[in-house]
């Protein structure tokens, strides 16, 4: 049997078995769950080779699933992060309600994402896309009735996106008579201008929703923050990357092929930039870790979108590199939040503080992820950001680079807030009982954060598959041999070797840590955080020394005018207006039978008049 098909059968069968296994035994269910995520993932990498394909014909439509390098690149995110999150999830979900639903949707999400990556035709792409949407939607509302509106908001936006995509798909079909992606790519340059514009616009709308691009991002904070954290790491880490995946394909294979593509690139790049700024500003404002990370995801996706939209090879590399890195660090960070939530029961910065000594490993993972997120060398975020700036500057996006830079500077604010809010600050008595999260939760986080470190220091490891992926999309590799040494070429023809500098940083850092910090740490004695010089006085036992309310008050006084305009409000008003309209519409059905009869007569009369008018 075809290995491509096998993987899906395993996923699907596993999902169903897991769903019902809960009736028999919870442990069995967990094991089945793990197996049905890990085994197909294992098979994916061992049994599938590039170019392997499966073709079916359904309803006269040719469906083609096959693996190419670009899909393989994203499969690293999906299956890698998925596997980690699955291990994490088993421990995280212990003792929760509706385990079957959770596991089922988790597996389906992973399956659908794998499917998206394998789909070489628009229909199966769309099918998997929708499975992904509804399985993630079911996760969004997993936590009960408070989140109904959030879930529906998510699904409505997703549906708008998906349906836009569907419209593009049928457009393609009406022109090419086929649903295969390669047919679209071949036919695209010779299409009419109208189609050349509409198809990418509609496709991009669909992808932009999942990638939480600016005017369509409003679902993201709610949805990310309300799903179970074990899933959110996949949700934000991998699922949003499917939007990126689609956007990349659209940009590389369609938009860049036509002269009008420049407009798309500019508009989307700017939208990405604005997304980054808005996401960052709102992230800073949040007092809840989940929300903060959710907005941060929006912002980070903004960078990625910008990178992809710019469309130079370096920019694409940057975007894709950031995409992988974002999957890693945001996946880890959501796991961290999950761990904190599991151990303390809350994720609010104003409630939790000073967990560093209670949960050191979690803190370690959080620290590395935050450093990567902030884009500070030597962790992975920097390489991506650096390439992004290089590509922006060399492709003459001067103002955009300022916007992006501002947002990434402002990102330090929430980065610090995250670390400080949970782990630093006063060690409150209330949390003295808190222990480190279970090993099954800690290990994935630590593995992921070490991965970030490795990829940041040796970016070549990741850059070469990205390069392969881009080649699969039709990019000719202009500097093939440079990858081994992580040399990067910018738009002005300058060669850059990043790696040595990263080694130096690590070396110097280790020097100071070993010779200064650790030595000093050993020679000193730990005192509690109450034992401080508070303006020269010794604070009383009950004095509140936790600083967490209005954390960045001065900053918000400065940016207030920007924050006042909310896109959410616009959508809310729109929604309310529509509901009022619908309410009015349904009043047509007055409930009086005679009125209905009058409608009938009126219909006949109008039709008669109209018909006679047509005859004359």
């Amino acid at each position, binding site marked *: 049997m075809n290995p491509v098909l096998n993987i899906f059968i395993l996923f699907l069968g596993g999902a169903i078995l897991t769903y019902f296994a809960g009736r028999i035994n919870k442990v069995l269910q967990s094991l089945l769950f793990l197996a049905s995520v890990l085994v197909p993932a294992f098979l994916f990498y061992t049994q599938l080779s590039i170019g392997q394909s499966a073709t079916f014909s359904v309803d006269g439509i040719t469906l083609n699933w096959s693996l190419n390098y670009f899909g393989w690149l994203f499969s690293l995110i999906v299956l890698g992060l998925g596997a980690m999150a699955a291990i994490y999830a088993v421990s995280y979900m212990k003792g929760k309600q509706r385990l079957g639903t959770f596991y089922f949707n988790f597996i389906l999400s992973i399956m659908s994402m794998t499917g998206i990556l394998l789909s070489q035709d628009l229909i199966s792409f769309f099918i998997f896309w929708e499975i992904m949407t509804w399985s993630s939607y079911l996760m969004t509302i997993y936590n009960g009735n408070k989140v109904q509106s959030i879930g529906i908001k998510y699904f409505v936006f997703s549906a708008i996106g998906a349906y836009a995509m569907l419209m593009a798909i049928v457009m393609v079909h009406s022109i090419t008579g086929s649903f295969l992606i390669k047919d679209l790519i071949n036919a695209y340059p010779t299409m009419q201008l109208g189609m050349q514009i509409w198809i990418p616009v509609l496709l991009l709308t669909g992808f932009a929703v999942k990638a939480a691009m600016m005017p369509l991002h409003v679902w993201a904070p709610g949805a990310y923050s309300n799903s179970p954290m074990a899933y959110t790491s996949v949700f934000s880490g991998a699922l949003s990357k499917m939007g990126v995946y689609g956007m990349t394909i659209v940009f590389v294979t369609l938009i860049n092929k036509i002269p009008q593509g420049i407009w798309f690139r500019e508009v989307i790049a700017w939208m990405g930039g604005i997304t980054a700024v808005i996401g960052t500003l709102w992230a800073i404002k949040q007092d809840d870790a989940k929300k903060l990370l959710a907005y941060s995801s929006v912002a980070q996706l903004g960078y990625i979108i910008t990178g992809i939209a710019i469309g130079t090879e370096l920019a694409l590399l940057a975007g894709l590199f950031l995409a992988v890195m974002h999957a890693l660090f945001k996946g880890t960070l959501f796991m961290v939040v999950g761990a904190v939530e599991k151990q303390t029961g809350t994720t609010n910065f104003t409630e939790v503080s000073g967990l560093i000594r209670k949960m050191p490993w979690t803190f370690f993972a959080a620290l590395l992820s935050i450093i990567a997120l902030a884009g500070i060398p030597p962790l992975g975020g920097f390489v991506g950001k650096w390439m992004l700036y290089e590509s922006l500057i060399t492709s003459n996006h001067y103002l955009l680079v300022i916007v992006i830079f501002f947002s990434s500077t402002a990102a330090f604010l929430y980065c610090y807030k995250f670390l400080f809010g949970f782990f630093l600050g006063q060690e409150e008595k209330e949390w003295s009982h808190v222990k480190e999260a279970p090993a099954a939760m800690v290990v994935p986080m630590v593995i992921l954060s070490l991965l970030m470190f490795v990829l940041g220091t040796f970016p070549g490891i990741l850059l070469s598959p990205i390069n392969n992926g881009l080649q699969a999309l039709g990019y000719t590799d202009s500097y093939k041999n440079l990858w081994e040494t992580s040399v990067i070429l910018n738009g002005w023809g300058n060669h850059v070797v990043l790696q040595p500098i990263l080694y130096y940083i690590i070396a110097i850092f280790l020097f100071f840590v070993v010779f200064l910090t650790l030595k000093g740490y050993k020679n000193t004695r730990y005192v509690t955080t109450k034992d401080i010089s508070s303006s020269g006085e010794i604070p009383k036992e009950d004095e509140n020394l936790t600083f967490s309310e209005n954390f960045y008050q001065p900053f918000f006084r400065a940016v207030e005018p920007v924050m006042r305009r909310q896109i959410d409000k616009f959508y809310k008003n729109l929604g309310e207006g529509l509901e009022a309209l619908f309410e009015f519409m349904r009043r047509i059905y007055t409930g009086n039978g005679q009125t209905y009869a*009058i409608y009938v*007569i*009126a219909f*006949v*009369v109008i039709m*008669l*008049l109209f018909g*006679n008018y047509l005859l004359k």
Partner: protein
Amino acid sequence: MKKLLVIVLLAVLGFYTASTFFDIGFGSPHFVKGIDPVKDIYINQTVKSLNVPNAVTSIVVNFRGFDTLGEVTVLFLAVTVLGSVLYKKRHEVGERSVLFSASSVVTSGAKLIFPAIILLGAYVFIHGHLSPGGGFQGGVIIATGFLLMLLSYESYSVSHKALSIVESLAGITFAGVGLLGLLHGGSFLHNFLPTGVMNSLFSGGIIPIIYIAVGFKVAAELTGVIYTVLNEKGEGNE
């Protein structure tokens, strides 16, 4: 306002309908030129194939007998639906209520006329294929007989069970004859019996059989309708 709207709408509707039919014309063949309408075939075949003088009957029972089967079913269904709509749990069923008793003229007259009405009805449906009238008309006449009795005598009652049996048997006859036609002649309602001598009682093949069944059925059903509605306990006359 609503009234005015309705009047305007109805005026327009009436104008169009009326002008359409005025245009079609009254009293002369109105078919478009160059076609031969089915009615000519019906009239010719009535005599030729069916050996029946009454063209309407031949259409109702044979040419378009399927419609009639449906029609009978509609009636049957109406009774069923009536029973369902006015269904009451057993303990809710009360006595039939009457505003005032019929006078003795009515009661004794009814008793006298009743057999005559039944007879007339039977005559009408038995001779349905020969003369004007038929199963429906005869059935209705019989039902009026029962109506008269029901109105005259407070205590007069019709057995639901009997009505139901008659109704069912008649219906089964109709459908059964049709199916026999399918068996014998290859098509449903096929006239598989010999058509006999024109203008005699036993002619026309299955037509009289069906019409008799229809007569019984209509009689039973209409009586059933009347009886069911009459049994409804009025609330204005406690």
